[in-house]
């Protein structure tokens, strides 16, 4: 009998006493859990963008935002799977969801959430069915409500090592650890994400670590800073670039780059601006003078966040 069927039968049997998940306090707990819209980077886009017509660093920024979103969605999916179920335990200042069977066969998963005033902490934990001795934590999060629903400051920490050591696949690729700090108290909303990966034998070029910072205003103006590794500057060494992209809600934007390491031009800075059609209007890359296009005056004025 599935968990849901068990719940339905329990409801029928317990109809006299009342049954259901109709809870205001549940809402408070659930509102403290992070959601995809809160932790997603939104870079302006249009449908049917033509490759080659759009600015290089606009495309890069957008691609990085998709990676950023992919990372957050991976662990938020774990939380959402649990959150879709009604809590199995309701205690004062505590909710427990599960345990329910995890995707990983032979494992159970649960989420325990505690509350102290306006601060919530939560842990997503796994346990082997064959050895119900203790719970292994994958995700630990905190959230402090500051000014109402989905307005607060949160931290999320993911450490996959305990699960991997126990022989389980957390379902997060080659992620070693991840920390997320986010503030949704007021605009601009910002999210800082730092991660470290284990080696991917199939893709040795994948970054081993990374740091993203994303901020967005209510009008769609945003910024995304990220480390980027590629071979932008000709030479045998993979170059590390620190990119800060900023854009307006209408689409105009710019990317300011600094060479952190590489074959040459270490410390050099470059700039690319694009219009609301995402076409480059200004390009200034010291290592590619032939690509120079436009003047700085062609760049839209974008305030810093």
């Amino acid at each position, binding site marked *: 009998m599935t968990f849901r069927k068990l719940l339905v039968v329990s409801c029928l049997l317990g*109809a006299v006493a*009342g049954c259901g998940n*109709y809870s205001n306090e549940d*809402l408070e707990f659930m*509102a403290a859990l992070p959601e995809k819209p809160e932790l997603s980077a939104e870079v302006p886009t249009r449908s049917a963008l033509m490759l080659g017509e759009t600015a290089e660093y606009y495309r890069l920024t957008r691609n990085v935002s998709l990676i950023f979103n992919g990372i957050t969605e991976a662990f938020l999916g774990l939380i959402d799977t649990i959150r879709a179920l009604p809590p199995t335990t*309701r205690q004062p200042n505590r909710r427990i969801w599960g345990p329910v069977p995890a995707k990983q066969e032979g494992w159970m998963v649960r989420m325990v959430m505690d509350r102290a005033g306006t601060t919530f902490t939560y842990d997503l934990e796994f346990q082997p069915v064959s050895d119900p001795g203790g719970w292994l934590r994958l995700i630990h999060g905190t959230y402090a409500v500051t000014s*109402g*629903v989905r*307005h607060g400051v949160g931290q999320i920490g993911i450490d996959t090592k305990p699960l991997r050591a126990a022989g389980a696949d957390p379902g997060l690729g080659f992620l070693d650890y991840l920390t997320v700090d986010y503030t949704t108290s007021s605009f601009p909303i910002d999210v800082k994400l730092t991660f470290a990966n284990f080696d991917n034998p199939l893709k040795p070029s994948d970054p081993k670590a990374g740091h993203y910072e994303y901020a967005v205003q209510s009008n769609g103006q945003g910024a995304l800073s990220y480390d980027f590794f590629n071979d932008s500057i000709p030479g045998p060494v993979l170059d590390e670039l620190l990119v800060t992209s900023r854009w307006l809600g209408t689409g105009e934007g710019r990317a300011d780059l600094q060479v952190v390491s590489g074959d040459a031009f270490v410390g050099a800075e470059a700039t690319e601006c694009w219009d609301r059609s995402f076409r480059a209007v200004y390009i200034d890359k010291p290592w590619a003078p032939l690509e120079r296009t436009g003047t700085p005056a062609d760049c839209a004025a974008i305030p810093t966040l």
Partner: protein
Amino acid sequence: MRRSLTALALLAALLWGAARDACAQGLRRLAIVVGNDTGGGDTRPLLYARDDARKVYDILSRLGGVRAEDATLILDGTAQDLLSALGDMERRARDAGQHGERVALLVYFSGHAKDGALRLGKTQLPLEALKNRLAQAPADVRIGIFDSCRSGMLTRTKGARKAPAFEIESKGARDAKGMVILTSSASDEDSQESDLIGGSYFSHHLASGLLGGADRSGDGRVTLFEAYAYAYDRTVADTADSAAGAQHPTFSYDLAGNGDLVLTDVGGRREGLFFPRAAPSGVYYLVDGRGFVAAEVVKNPDAERRIALAPGRYRVKRRLADRLRVGEIEIGHGQLSTLDEGTLRDAPFADDPVKGARPELALTRWTLGLGGTYQAIFDAPARESLFPATGMLGIDAQLHNFFRRDWVWGFDLALGSAAGTVNLSTGGQVPFHFSEIAAGTSMLVEWPHARLTPFVGARLALLLMSRTFDDPQLPKQSFSTLSPGVVAGLKLSLFGDLGLVVRGRVHYLLYNVDENRSLGYWELASAVSYDL
């Protein structure tokens, strides 16, 4: 009353010869038999008026010499139906008179009477008008038998004399002409029905008498006077200890000439049950297959009795001081069965074959309703952020008189929705859309009056409540519970079978998700009802 009965018996004896002559001469008998359980909005429906009419109609047709074409049975008809049938019978009587036939016209009515009028459903027929019409009918003998409340007023009015005062003309052997009226109760009495006998006391005993129980003379013929005397004795005896008080049938006549009228010829039909002289004396109950008393027979010592029961299987019961004597007897077509005391056995009172009826089933009816309800939790915080006040549309069906008279078993279903907002303790608001399905069953007691019917009762509702949120990340929430409560209301009869119902409910609701909270809620509803 005993004086009157003595006089009646004497009258019957004196006029006996003339009556037999009249019968022998081939008296044309016309009969209108009317039964109507309903009497309009200000009366409570009767249970057995139609059954009584059927019973009398059957006896008159089978034993009373009334030809099929000369008998009319009107069930649940109107005053116009009765007057129309009366007009038809008057025409037949006139035709018969022109052919030299003597004619007796009998009108039997079982139903409501109130405020000086017979009630036939929602129509009325003034008693005085009917009496005058009957008095002027072109028949030699007009007989009115009225089994209805306060029907005795018919025998108080001008033109008729009550039995205790009548005079006996013993001279001459003229055929009787005139009018006789029998009523089931006095002018200030109600006529009572019995669930055990499945009919009114008066009609039951009148029928038993006509079947042969009233044949005091033992000649196999039951005269009008014998039938009345028997019905009077048994009705008074049976109702003496009733809550409504003793019921006294009345008899009046306005006859010129002499002559009793033979109503049934029991001896002429060799079919029924014969009580031999040797059978123990006492009151015998002949119970039909439904558990109703088909006939009661007073068996006197050293006397024979013949009861013209219709063919069928009956159980026989005789009550002794400490036990019953019971048995079964089969009466075949054209067969006169003889009661053999040896076939009866002793039985405890608990095995009484007289089961009676579930009278409420006779009145069982459905009512459908359609209306709106407004529902609100008493507790303001819960009303604001948990279960918002809700308007609902609903249907209901009510089964009246199923368990017992004036008890109503109701079923209802209502759906509603509302908007609400959760005020979180951490600050902020979460708007939601609330919806509810309420299915209930209720047991009510109602007190029908003329147009208003108040009712109270208990209800058990299954509440299915849910809410969805504008925030797509918040899952749908639901709560179901059983909620007991009380109901009170008023039904106003409008026109036809339509009514307007105003109803209030107060319910208990145990909310136990976040914590155990006893919440109450109230409902106000109005609905249009339709009686099926």
